């Protein structure tokens, strides 16, 4: 499994991680998701992440994912791109890691739910990725280390057509480049 995580490709690895982490992925958007979503799990859940015997290489994307335990992704309200308190916590964790490994570069992928028009969602995804990047930069991460890419509504992680799925898909995912 760790080898899988060490060869990340764009959102695939991020979504893999989300799936692996199960409840974590869903809980991460709890602040904006419908009320029926499960509450945020306690720190104990993180022990379910990568196997303890073979930990990821420090400074790798696998390490980033393990350390973030869901905080590699931030979530947005419908048609919005503002960074709220929960996003700020997640981005602070990301910034901490990025500042610890100053040679690492990262791409922030902006995504939207399916309930918008295709072209506008491309622009909106870019705006979300850009908002996340600006916040990281405000925390001291060099802007030259971060790039953005928008996938609009082209790459959903949650496949349903309901509020829960849409809440999970309105996201910006930080992927570090190994």
């Amino acid at each position, binding site marked *: 499994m760790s080898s899988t995580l060490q060869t990340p490709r764009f959102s695939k690895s991020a979504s893999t991680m989300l799936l692996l982490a199960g409840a974590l992925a869903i809980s991460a958007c709890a602040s904006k998701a419908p009320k029926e979503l499960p509450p945020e799990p306690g720190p104990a859940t993180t022990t379910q992440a990568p196997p303890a015997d073979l930990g990821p290489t420090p400074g790798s994307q696998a390490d980033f994912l393990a350390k973030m335990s869901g905080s590699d992704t931030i979530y947005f309200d419908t048609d919005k791109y503002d960074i709220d308190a929960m996003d700020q916590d997640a981005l602070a964790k990301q910034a901490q890691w990025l500042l610890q490994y100053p040679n690492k570069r990262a791409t922030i992928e902006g995504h939207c739910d399916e309930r918008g028009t295709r072209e*506008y969602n491309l622009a909106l995804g870019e*705006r979300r990725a*850009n908002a996340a990047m600006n916040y990281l930069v405000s925390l001291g991460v060099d802007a030259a280390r971060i790039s953005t890419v928008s996938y609009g509504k082209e790459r959903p992680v949650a*496949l349903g*057509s309901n509020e829960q799925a849409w809440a999970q898909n309105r996201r910006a995912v930080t992927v570090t480049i190994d």
Partner: protein
Amino acid sequence: MKLHHLAALGLMLSVSAPVLAQDATQAPLAQVPVDPEAGLQVTVSDDSDWQDLGIAITTFATDADVPTQTNAGSTAALGRALSQVVAADLKNNGLFKPSGPAGLPQPAFSEVQTPNFPIWSVRSTDMLVQGYVRAAASGQLTVGCYLYDVALKQQLAKGGWQVGPADWRRAAHKCADMVYSRLSGESPFFDSKIAYIAETGPKDRRIKRLAVMDSDGANHRYLTSGQATALTPRYSPDYSKILYLSYLNGQPSIYSYDLATNSQKLIVRTGNPTMAPRWSPDGKWVLYSMSTGGRTDIYRISSAGGGTPQRLTNGPGINIGGSYSPDGSRIVFESDRSGSQQVYVMNADGSNQHRISFFGGRAATPEWSPRGDQIAFTHIAGNLRIAVMSPDGRGMRYLTDSWQDEAPTWSPNGRIVQFFRTEKNSGITSIWQVDLTGRNERKLPTPVGASDPAWGPVRP
């Protein structure tokens, strides 16, 4: 592409027997004006009169049943196939309810220009379409098409075309166009092509390929492999190129795909994402939208390549899309500068930007009709629906009512709106056409899922 193979023969046919048609010159393909004073003008917006019109489409005759190089078979089989394409064209958009060719008397080759009117009067036929097909030794095909008014015992229109074996359907589309134009007074549109995105695979790993097909879904062809996600194609007005978005270099970027050479190039070199490509009506300009620092603005650049892009909007927020008025003087586009997606109009130089949509909900993906009288767009209020409004934002009305319909584009004559529909949960997409009454909706046959349809102009 192979336009020179499609020569006009109409004038020759007006005075000669079908057998003489092969002597025709390579004149520009044109409607043959016959009996222009006979006015049968009905607006397509009210289709009630249309469908009562009894139109019989008969099997096209042939002088000799010989093999052809077409996929339809011998000339006799081809004659049947041609009439089936004509009937399907006229029927599928709900414009007419033609009968035939099955179940109708089959005119002999000698009857094509001298219809047996009494047998059609008895059948309560108002309009009669007859035709023929002949194969030359070279493989070239000559197709003639005649429209008769049975009550008046009069020929209303005729046309003849010479086509290569691969292009036989075009002759049928030309015939359908001739009949449609003569009876409706509208411009033709069947002989045209559609660029779109072919979709396969599950929702989270959807493969999206650039593809093209004829206006009726035939002659489908993929242009890209699917390795890089392709989106939002637009045919150039001369069919030589397709603008589309590709993730080929990682960042979504607009490429110009050259159909003659099957090569493509970026329309503008920039590290920033570019999207939403559109042609000007004369093909000289390309509109595109580019994001910088989270903002998105609309730019204009020469389609010839080179030159400095000219920014037409200056924020705030997302300004995207853009569709020229038919005369090229104005551009309708989408902006969320007011807080949500709404439709705006500006002059082609970017001046005088003003909002035109004020009916609640969000309004997106505006496309100016080639006739200039309507703007089609996606209205978002919960569901996504196709709607039209006048260029001043009045008279908004829905054409569709489904869970998710988006991205309307126009038929070349501005009478049909095409869009794509997404299924809830599965995310499976399909292309649909609807007329301006909203009553006649049809799904286009595509081999796989299909989205982002863009109609090219009617072919010469």
